[in-house]
């Protein structure tokens, strides 16, 4: 009956398809033209080709007609094909690991430039560093040889010698030697000025490393600008990935999708190489890692799984649905606390727990009243209720943090416990001194980030507000801004109190302690309390200058004590880490490094 309106609808559809596909078509056809001739001067000929293209197109249409005919039987034996595919998948299952994630490489896979979790994660699978952190390290990081087999540091920790493992080859056959090490670090530092904040810049390689020297084919020496005990931590992180000079020119390269250098196996010496990297509009669509046949440690049967395919989801809840539906073997990063708790009870999946390293902390703008008054800062700090925060927002999957250095790491203390949680008596007395009471409560804006840069930041803010106001002498206005504006406000120093977060570059207290006074957080602590600030910096540098762990721990403890006294940056919580897999997945280590080492993961029965 609806014969005619069908035709009309189709008419419309055709019109729309034509009008818009022409866009896509023309562009694609043009790109053919460009491949046929890159030179605009020979455009005419290419236009000729274009016409011929169109000519062949018509013939193709003819072929298509036949194809369509072919489809009928294709559909007929589709079931057979499907079955075949099923079988093929079943066979491939054991050597293919499908990972679902909400991450995406931010910019590039050039170790000198990548500075995002996922970029580093991929780099770790395809690249190698001189030293590595032993999987499953519990207290701090214990470093094991990787491309270097041994090392020793000078007495005052500013000269480091490394002896390299022999017989390692880059996939193109190049023998790995000391020159590559020197090259890699020279390059990283050399690139710093030309890139925004590539990893080395962020880590401050240029500030730490003075120069690198080749002592022999397999001996290399680092001269540092100052004693620096955490140096191994630096060497173990992705930015120190050794590159093959042939494929990593000194000039800045973006190892971005489509760049042949990005997907070639020969740039690095890792257990995998990047077999496929599709990005759409600056977001990853598909990444496939294949086992690197030249991996130096292949003898020990690494990698355990032949292929790793990453599947990219835009949000945690769809990722959860996917892992439940069995679309992925493994879901890692950003599955929400709620979801992971539910999944624990789901027999079809296995949940892996690990220590986290991501922390969040509360910053006070000391430039103006009220928080230029230390008593007020301490009072508010005392009114915080960290356990409520962790239990309500993170359902216990985050731990209250009483020192900027997270547990499981050298120098972690419980310093802020001194002020207690929801310690309203202290709050009231201090605020009374500062001239606030029920009738005249302390009122300030608490800012949080609203575009999902931090986990459930809005909920955090709500809970914190409630805890503070429970003191009866504090009134909080919640304010929010999306990440860009938030950062702007931070730099403009217009936010009275704001929640901020930190994720470590290298596994060492050295990469946390400085947060108390970091200039880029713009609390103005260093300007308002220079003497305390200098004390802390001094302690910090002392800690850098010794490998004596007890001494270092002691020094960091002192830093914490001053921080408690001043309450300029107040630790709130440390996240825990978890991954969700199918029950038949093994070999996952979620240790303090936060690294996911895919070459250790294997699919069992």
């Amino acid at each position, binding site marked *: 009956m609806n014969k005619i309106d069908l035709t009309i609808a189709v008419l419309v559809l055709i019109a729309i398809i034509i009008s818009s596909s022409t866009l896509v078509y023309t562009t694609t056809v043009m790109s053919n033209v460009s491949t046929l001739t890159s030179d605009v001067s020979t455009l005419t000929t290419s236009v000729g080709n274009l016409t011929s293209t169109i000519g062949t197109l018509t013939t193709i249409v003819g072929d298509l007609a036949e194809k369509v005919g072919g489809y009928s039987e294709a559909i007929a034996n589709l079931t057979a094909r499907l079955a075949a595919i099923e079988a093929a998948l079943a066979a491939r299952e054991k050597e293919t690991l499908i990972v679902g994630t909400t991450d995406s490489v931010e910019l590039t896979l050039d170790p000198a430039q990548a500075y995002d979790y996922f970029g580093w994660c991929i780099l770790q699978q395809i690249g190698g560093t001189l030293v590595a952190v032993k999987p499953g390290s519990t207290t701090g990081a214990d470093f094991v040889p990787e491309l270097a087999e041994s090392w020793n540091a000078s007495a005052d920790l500013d000269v480091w010698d490394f002896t390299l493992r022999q017989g390692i080859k880059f996939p193109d056959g190049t023998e790995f030697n000391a020159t590559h090490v020197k090259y890699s670090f020279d390059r990283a530092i050399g690139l710093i000025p030309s890139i925004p904040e590539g990893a080395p810049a962020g880590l401050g390689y240029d500030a730490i490393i003075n120069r690198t020297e080749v002592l022999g084919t397999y001996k290399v020496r680092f001269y540092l600008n100052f004693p620096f005990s955490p140096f191994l931590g630096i060497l173990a992180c992705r930015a120190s990935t050794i590159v093959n000079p042939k494929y990593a020119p000194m000039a800045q390269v973006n190892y971005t999708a489509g760049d042949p250098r990005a997907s070639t196996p020969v740039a690095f010496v890792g257990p995998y190489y990047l077999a496929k990297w599709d990005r759409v509009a600056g977001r990853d669509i598909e990444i496939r890692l294949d086992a690197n046949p030249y991996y130096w440690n292949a003898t020990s049967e690494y990698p355990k799984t032949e292929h790793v395919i990453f599947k990219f989801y835009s949000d*945690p*809840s769809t990722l*959860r*649905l996917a892992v*439940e539906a069995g679309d992925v073997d493994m879901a890692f990063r950003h599955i*929400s606390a*709620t*979801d992971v*708790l*539910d999944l624990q009870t789901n027999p079809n999946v296995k949940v892996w727990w690990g220590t986290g390293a991501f922390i969040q902390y509360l910053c006070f703008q000391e430039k103006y009243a009220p928080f230029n008054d230390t008593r007020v800062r301490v009072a508010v700090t005392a009114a915080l209720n960290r356990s*409520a925060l962790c239990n*309500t*927002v993170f*359902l216990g999957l985050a731990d209250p943090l009483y020192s900027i250095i997270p547990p499981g790491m050298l120098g972690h203390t419980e310093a802020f416990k001194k002020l207690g949680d929801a310690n309203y008596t202290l709050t009231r007395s201090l605020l009374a001194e500062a001239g606030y009471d029920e009738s005249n409560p302390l009122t300030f804006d608490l800012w949080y980030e*609203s*575009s*999902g840069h931090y986990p459930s930041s*809005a*909920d955090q*803010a*709500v*809970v914190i*507000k*409630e805890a503070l106001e429970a003191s009866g002498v504090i009134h909080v*206005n*919640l*304010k*929010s*801004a*999306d990440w860009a*504006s938030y950062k702007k406000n931070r730099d403009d120093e217009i936010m009275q109190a704001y929640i901020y977060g930190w994720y470590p570059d290298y596994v060492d207290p050295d990469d946390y302690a400085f947060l108390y006074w970091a200039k880029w957080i713009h609390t103005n602590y260093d300007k308002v309390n220079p003497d305390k600030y200098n004390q802390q910096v001094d302690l910090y540098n002392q800690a850098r200058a010794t490998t004596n762990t007890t001494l270092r721990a002691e020094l960091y403890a002192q830093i914490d004590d001053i921080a408690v006294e001043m309450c300029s940056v107040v630790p709130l919580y440390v996240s825990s880490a978890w991954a969700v897999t199918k029950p038949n997945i093994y070999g996952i280590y979620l240790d303090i490094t936060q690294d996911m080492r895919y070459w250790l993961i294997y699919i069992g029965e």
Partner: protein
Amino acid sequence: MSKIRSKLNVLKHFISEFTSLTKRGPSGWMVIIGVIIVLAIVLMTLLSPWISPHNPAATNVGPIRAPPSAEFPLGTNHLGQDMLSRILCGGSIMLQVSALSVLVCFLIGVPLGLFSSYVGGNVDKVISLIIDAVYAFPGLVIAIAIAAMLGPGVINMALSIAVVYIPSYFRIVRSQVLSIKELSYVEAAKAIGAKWHTILSRYIFPNVVPSIVVIATINFADAVLTAAGLTFIGLGISKAIPDWGWDLYDGWRYLSSGAWWIITFPGLMIILIALGFTMIGEGLSELLNPKLQH
């Protein structure tokens, strides 16, 4: 002319005796039901401070993500907040935003349309070009951009939504005026030397009112939905204030964990209010459509 007259009469009629709508067939009923829904929700929101069982903003008043029960008829959300209390007052922001945006649209779109179409000539051309440029563009994108630019806040949100819907007012008014302008009695008015603003306000404006009313109600519904959409993308008002949009967003995050009640009820409320306005709009547009009168 008779058409417009009848339109106007119908409108007067409608205003004068709301009840007579019952005699006007299904369209009449649509309007009545729509109005009732809207009024009910507005009333509910106004009364919420007195009728809500718990403080809607207080966390942990109940267990976390508790399904509907005697104590918490609509369950609790991920922060242990009482959904019922949140539902009761959660409409306020949306209503404010959409009301405000409709007002802005009206105050800008209508005069602009009247003016532009009445003056005609190049002025009209230019204005129409600009308006069409906006109109021919995915509204939500504009809204998002502006919302991001202005930052969160009721007024900002309303403005960002208003920008999207001004064109539809402008267009409807303009087309109406262009048709009315040529009508004999307007000509006559001109002939007897009435001032242009008199003609606009006295002769033309009354005749475009009906179509504006229709647009406004539809716009109201759209505004609610857009507001929800903006919140959904994360450009909503600070979370301290209970809001259906936020609850919907949270509900989405916790839907996968089977907490259907967090998303369902706010969702239904939004549908309901949007439905209310849409029904009014649809009913009116049919009642006021001269081509459909016997």
